[in-house]
């Protein structure tokens, strides 16, 4: 309702011109408020569809997770301290991204860049550990082709890892954009979208470490 009213008033405001005493910020509100709002909502809808992809992979894992085909089980393969460290990296990167958002809100470019850099490094540490884990599993003959359990495991965890990889690519790109253009509204919007993406990945990881790793080692 308020959107319609505002649009209507802006049309009138444009007709009358600024001389007639219309507050210019009224038009500013209409032009600036609505597009950004729809970008964030649109990005949220993307995340929800991503959520469905992960739900399919979780369902696959739930069905195939105990089909070891005579091969190694989760209890034999999973190294929980390593998973705990990975979880810590991702959780820490979530809060450092939060700090980057707070600094960008204060229009503090330098601090924003530093926190983004820290977030990126934590993301890289997460990826490095995960790649180490994957290469170790493949090395001991527990690659994705070994059993239904390992196929479902690799599909789910690697899809998450791929998301983190692209999150880091996005983060680095955004750092270059910030360096070049500063904290303009467009970059603020991009930061906001990446923030949602990054926190969303952390939410997915909660499901992964609980459902795959912790429940996988239970007898």
């Amino acid at each position, binding site marked *: 309702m308020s959107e319609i009213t505002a649009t209507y008033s802006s049309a009138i405001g444009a007709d009358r011109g600024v001389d007639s005493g219309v507050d210019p910020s009224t038009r500013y509100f209409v032009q600036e408020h609505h597009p950004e709002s729809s970008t964030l909502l649109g990005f949220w809808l993307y995340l929800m569809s991503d959520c469905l992809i992960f739900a399919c992979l979780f369902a696959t894992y739930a069905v195939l997770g105990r089909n070891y085909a005579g091969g190694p089980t989760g209890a034999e393969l999973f190294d929980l301290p390593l998973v705990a460290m990975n979880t810590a990296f991702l959780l820490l990167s979530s*809060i450092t991204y939060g*700090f980057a958002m707070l600094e960008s809100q204060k229009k503090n470019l330098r601090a924003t860049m530093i926190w983004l850099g820290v977030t990126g490094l934590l993301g890289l540490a997460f990826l490095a550990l995960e790649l180490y884990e994957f290469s170790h599993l493949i090395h001991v003959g527990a690659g994705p082709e070994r059993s239904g359990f390992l196929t479902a495991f690799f599909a789910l965890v690697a899809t998450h890892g791929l998301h983190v990889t692209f999150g880091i690519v996005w983060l680095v790109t955004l750092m270059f954009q910030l360096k070049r253009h500063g904290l303009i*509204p467009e970059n603020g919007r991009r930061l906001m979208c990446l923030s949602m993406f990054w926190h969303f990945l952390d939410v997915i990881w909660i499901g992964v470490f609980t459902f795959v790793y912790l429940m996988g080692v239970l007898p």
Partner: protein
Amino acid sequence: MSDPHAKSAHAAHGAEHGHHGHEDHVDHGSVKSYSIGFVLSVILTAIPFWLVMGKVITDSSTTGFVILGFAAVQIVVHMIYFLHMNTKSEGGWSILALVFTVMVVVIMLTGSIWVMYHLNTNMMPHMADPTGELHMPSATHDATQHTQHK
């Protein structure tokens, strides 16, 4: 008539978010909210790891349900403190999309698990539990035989 409407809407909008610019209408949280979220997450992560690694509860299905409960709580904590979800953001459309997604996910997950577990039971009648309880026969045995035939 329409101008005062727009202005008052705008004024209310500005008042809600204090000193933020016009482009900055989304709640980004504060150091406090992020810290609360982080501390809660650390606690909610540490307890499940401790439960499993320390083998605190002997019954594994009980442990499973407990750590799933912790995960659910932690997901809600992340949604509120990190993703800043509330019923008002984007005029309620975000929460509506979330509710819809959760509904689809729940139907899909419970449906898949329910159907597939019963499928396993029904396809191997000799392994079915006579009490009719939800029973997941070990597929290892069957799969091993299968590979041996090859």
